[in-house]
């Protein structure tokens, strides 16, 4: 019963509570308080969030659709898009696997150094992306630890695609794990134990019990991870070398165009990233909605309520 009540406590129920709170004279704030708070948040929202977003699209289309399309269809732009997609396509699955493994280890087992691991997972969040890039330059660069050996074997990492992928993996490291750890900790081990006792193998348990329980959290983490992977600037900038058509990602390409005073083209490419952000937000909201109301019980309760 308690579980059902908690699950029903989704967006709809919360909005309902707010309405009720508002409707009762005893719990209602004075109108000016309400309008002041609403006004402040809306003004902030307009100036800091909405205005820049609109500006991107306005600037991108200032010289007309033709310039817009030609900026996007330019060889360098296409290659930047390709590289960005490649980096994300490698970094996201890697961090997906790592994130699930780390969250599994932390949530389901007791071991020495667990707290250290949790702290370490957060490192990419707490360190400046520039430093993240420099770390790889120090390790793999020409003057770095492994530089001479790599040069001998003719392997290029810094100022090449592998470096960009490494930097992207580093900065997007925590997204999936951070999303899953609290979720898996809250769910405990009992269902997995039940599956084992019923004769399921480790893989079957993961596939049929663990994964379905975390799928929405996992998807949420992947979406955020992907958005960051495609939008990362600092770390990638340090290791990329900015070679046009070869080691430029979308954010780097925007910067180059802007520095060359090709504002319309810069904003055209930037609008792609902005679109990506909007799509991410839409998918994220949908996932949150599904995760919150996806269980049959709360659906039934909402049906009953309406």
């Amino acid at each position, binding site marked *: 019963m308690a579980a059902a009540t908690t699950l029903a406590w989704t967006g709809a129920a919360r909005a309902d509570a707010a309405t009720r709170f508002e409707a009762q004279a005893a719990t209602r704030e004075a109108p000016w308080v309400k309008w002041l708070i609403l006004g402040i948040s809306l003004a902030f929202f307009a100036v800091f969030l909405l205005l820049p977003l609109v500006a991107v699209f306005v600037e991108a289309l200032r010289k007309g659709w033709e310039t817009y399309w030609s900026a996007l269809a330019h060889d360098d732009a296409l290659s930047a898009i390709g590289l960005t997609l490649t980096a994300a396509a490698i970094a996201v699955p890697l961090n997906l696997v790592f994130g699930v493994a780390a969250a599994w280890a932390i949530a389901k087992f007791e071991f020495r150094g667990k707290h250290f691991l949790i702290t370490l997972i957060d490192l990419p969040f707490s360190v400046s992306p520039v430093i993240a890039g420099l770390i790889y330059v120090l390790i793999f660069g020409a003057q770095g630890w492994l530089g001479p050996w790599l040069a001998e074997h003719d392997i290029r990492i810094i100022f090449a695609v592998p470096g960009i992928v490494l930097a992207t993996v580093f900065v997007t490291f925590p997204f999936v794990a951070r999303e899953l750890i609290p979720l898996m900790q809250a769910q405990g081990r009992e269902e997995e134990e039940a599956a*084992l006792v019923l*004769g399921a193998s480790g893989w079957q348990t993961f596939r049929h019990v663990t994964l*379905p329980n975390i799928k929405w959290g996992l998807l949420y983490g992947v979406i955020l991870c992907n958005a960051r992977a495609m939008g990362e600037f600092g770390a990638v900038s340090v290791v990329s070398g900015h070679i046009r058509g070869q080691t430029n990602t979308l954010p780097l390409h925007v910067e180059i165009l802007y520095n060359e005073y090709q504002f319309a083209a810069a904003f055209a490419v930037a609008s792609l990233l902005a679109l990506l952000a909007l799509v991410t937000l839409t998918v994220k909201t949908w996932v949150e909605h599904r995760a919150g109301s996806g269980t049959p019980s709360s659906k*039934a309760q909402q049906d009953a309520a309406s």
Partner: protein
Amino acid sequence: MSIQVRNIRKAFGDFVALDDVSLDFPTGELVALLGPSGCGKTTLLRIIAGLEQADAGQVLLDGEDASGTHVRERQVGFVFQHYALFRHMSVFDNVAFGMRMKPRGERPSERQIRDKVHELLALVQLDWLADRFPTQLSGGQRQRIALARALAVEPRVLLLDEPFGALDAKVRKELRRWLRKLHDELHITSIFVTHDQEEALEVADRVVLMDHGHVEQTGTPEEVYRHPATPFVYGFLGAVNFFHGRVDGSALRVGDDVLPHASQEFDAGAEVIAFARPHELDLVPDEQGDAGEIGVGARIARILAFGVTARIELDGLNGLGGKSSGQHFEVELTQQRVAELNLAEGQRVRLLPSRLKVFERNGTTGASA
């Protein structure tokens, strides 16, 4: 299938959960592991299931050492306190899970699985809930589904970890009776863990009492209730009153008071602790508070006269010089006896036991008055 555990030890850090525990669970019996929380009963159950590894000792399933056998090969059915139903699966899929996870060669056809699931759901009387999800069920229903799921893989042993612990009192009582009935039909070797002595005595064929990682006593409910082997068992199996005293001939000296005690088990002067259940005590009026008379002095604090019998709560006056001792007693009398004695709150009385269970005093009483 029979289960034996031999010299099991298990510690979590400094905390010793099980200290050299050896037990036999014969085939077809329903055994209760009973004890307060932290006594190691759940740990023992999980070690038998294979969910926990013992530090030392052996678990023998059907006479064979199971230490190297993986959980999934032990063929045990396990029922969790909080049900552990798969929350994203329907009731049907939950019950079918064990059968569907079998290797391809042994796996029954979908048709056989369907028939078996419906048969099991009928057994737990919840066939009409097959399409529901766990969150749509009440606690009692969930636990019955969990039991059906455990039975689906035709386990050789059924292990239940506080199966009714999370349910409210009424549902608990119902499920207890139902579990007993089910066991009488299936005759599968079952062990269930509980901290509720009433539950253990009512349901089980045999009761194992545990405390602090030790087995205190094993026996039928009748045996352990009638003949508790240790003060802990006596105290755990029901409400008790206790008297600290010294053996003096055919009497027991409790402070300045005297209780009759005919047994010759103890030497004169031995420090003992004597127990009596509430219904084993009688009251006699004692207006003057005469010292030296038979019985322990007390003052009536409350009379709870509802129900078939009346419960009387008393404050002990068995301190030195007939002063309050700070000890409390509980006596159960028939309504008729209460009327006969014309008892009133605040009245001075003497407690007279009709039966006393006396243990040598060794510091571990575990009893409550």
